[in-house]
């Protein structure tokens, strides 16, 4: 081992374990376009694994609008683009599986359609600033130190300010 100055890095807040998918929609849910709701449902049901052809997705869902227009409406309603939304949902699903199963990172990456475990690790690092393995270790430590209430971990919430 080479010597380096001892150092500490702050990774993240513990909220990433309680709510790994902290997306708040830009509009209150009742004002979200029905087509956006269908797209979101589609992405959610597939754990974020959607493919890349948005025109095809819009066709499958019988939305009768182009992929470009659908992407624009989606971003206006949700606050982030559909690709980003799907990517975050997929990572959040991986986080849930790390917490609730004993499957290896490699297995979880394969289940969620990542080509390589490194791709999952990269997405994880971007979302939570830590590796999937660290996430699992820390979650189990948190479980021991604090009782964690059961909750819907990847539920999308509406923005509280706009709900009023």
């Amino acid at each position: 081992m080479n010597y380096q100055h001892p150092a500490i890095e702050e990774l993240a807040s513990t909220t990433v374990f309680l709510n790994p998918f902290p997306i708040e929609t830009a509009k209150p849910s009742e004002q979200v376009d029905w087509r956006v709701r269908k797209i979101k449902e589609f992405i959610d049901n597939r754990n974020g694994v959607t493919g890349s052809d948005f025109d095809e997705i819009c066709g499958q869902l019988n939305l009768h609008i182009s992929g470009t227009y659908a992407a624009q409406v989606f971003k206006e309603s949700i606050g982030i683009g559909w690709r980003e939304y799907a990517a975050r949902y997929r990572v959040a699903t991986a986080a849930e599986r790390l917490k609730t199963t004993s499957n290896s990172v490699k297995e979880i990456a394969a289940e969620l359609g990542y080509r390589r475990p490194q791709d999952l690790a990269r997405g994880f690092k971007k979302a939570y600033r830590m590796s999937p393995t660290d996430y699992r270790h820390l979650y189990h430590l948190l479980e021991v130190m604090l009782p964690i209430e059961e909750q819907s971990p990847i539920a999308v919430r509406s923005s509280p300010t706009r709900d009023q």
Partner: protein
Amino acid sequence: MYLNTSVQFSLRVTFVSARGPGCNFTASERLHPLPLAGGAYVLTELAHPVPNGVPLRPRPNQRHIRVSTRTPLGRCSVSWQVPAQWKVSSHVGTTRSGQRVLLLDITKGVVCKLNQVGSLVWLAISSNPGGNTAEGIATLLQSQFAHVARAQLAMDTNEFLNKLEQMRLVQRLP
């Protein structure tokens, strides 16, 4: 041990027992370089510093002990600094991921990761229920990194402990 009695110097020693009877001190192997020329004095009782026949008995929580004594070549003043014991704060949980230590601070709700050397320092503190001194930690690091100067290890250890203390991850034992 040679010591110039004309200067006041600071001597770092390993503190063995603050409260036990006798309060023995053991001299550190790494003392500040002391001049040997002119008026050098052989200090033979470092292992049991009993100036003028009076055993040193530091009070609880006492951090510094200063002793003045007469020597054949004049007055000699010696000060000992009792090293602080460090221990992990009770609200901090630890787990390991490979060779790295991961920390979870429940009160602040944050998670941290230490690099490999930081992890060694942490394990040196957490593996000893009574805590560990900076000196003890530096000794442990020295066994792993023999090629690194002792002074560098001691300085890095102190800086790191102070940072951990600022983050309230470790605390000095009262």
